[in-house]
């Protein structure tokens, strides 16, 4: 499933077995996205949350 990076416009390839919630990164600019929706072979991405001060184990 291909889509475009909203940051730099590069083609973003999302694996066909990706699931909602999974993270993908743009190979060109490293912008990180989260898979928001998959329907009829097309994928909708949203920017992933940024690392927070309270993130961790």
């Amino acid at each position, binding site marked *: 499933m291909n889509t475009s990076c909203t940051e730099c416009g590069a083609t973003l390839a999302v694996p066909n077995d990706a699931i*909602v919630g999974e993270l993908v990164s743009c190979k060109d600019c490293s912008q990180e996205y989260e898979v928001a929706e998959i329907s009829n072979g097309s994928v909708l991405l949203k920017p992933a949350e940024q690392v927070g001060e*309270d993130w*961790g184990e």
Partner: protein
Amino acid sequence: MKVSITFDRLRWEEKALSEAAEAAGVEATLVDSKGLIFEVPKKHPDLGDVVLQRCISHYRSSILTLMLEGAGLKVINSHDVAETCSNKLATTIALANAKVPTPRTFLALTSEAVEEAADRLGYPFVLKPFTGSWGRMVTVVRDRSTLQSLIEYKEELANPQEQHMYYLQEFVRRPPRDIRAIVAGDSIIACVHRIAPPGEWRTNVARGAVSKAFKPDAELKEIILKAAEAVGGGILGVDAMEPESGYLVHEVNNTVEFKGAQSAVDTDIPAQLIKYVSQVARR
């Protein structure tokens, strides 16, 4: 039995847990916590009876667990355990009170008091944030002038807990590695050394440390399980050090990451964790 695995960032661990549940015939659903809405204190229709809490954000995890327990669900780990593990002071208190060997630790409640605390503990020491992970903002303080500079930096932080209060811990002379044990209930699922990369003293996998399997001796096993019990038990990552004077437990992690450990051991960690979740669900 229906299990929900709640997350806010779908990492390798959460996917592996979901796959392990499917392989074991356990009905488990990955649930993105970011979209959940509750009418307090009712149960959420999309969640089962048991929740494996895997949120990466401590505050989101804590609030969600509070809500889930309030609605009568069983959560692994419980809110009490999460709160004890997410605050280094609470962890140290729990370990010390349970007679688990842990590094000498001081607390100072103001920027004025921290210099005296440092003098009493002795340099070098390690300054740690109360909340945080992956070795972030953990600093070796080697002298008073460095401490004074750090105080100025800390006073600029927005978080009141970290701005004026100080958690100081002895700098333990150890090999360039520590121990990570993954515990579920009263079993040690896996045990690895985390070896710091060149030029780095911290041993967090997030900082490039490499995991290597090893067999804990009887004394270490006992200390690891005692540490897990001291914070309330569940699925935990117990971190220990091995100075010449004997083992010391310095941290217990509530939402343990195990990708690094899995790369070093044959044991199927997610399968063992799901086995524990099933056992808890049947209780």
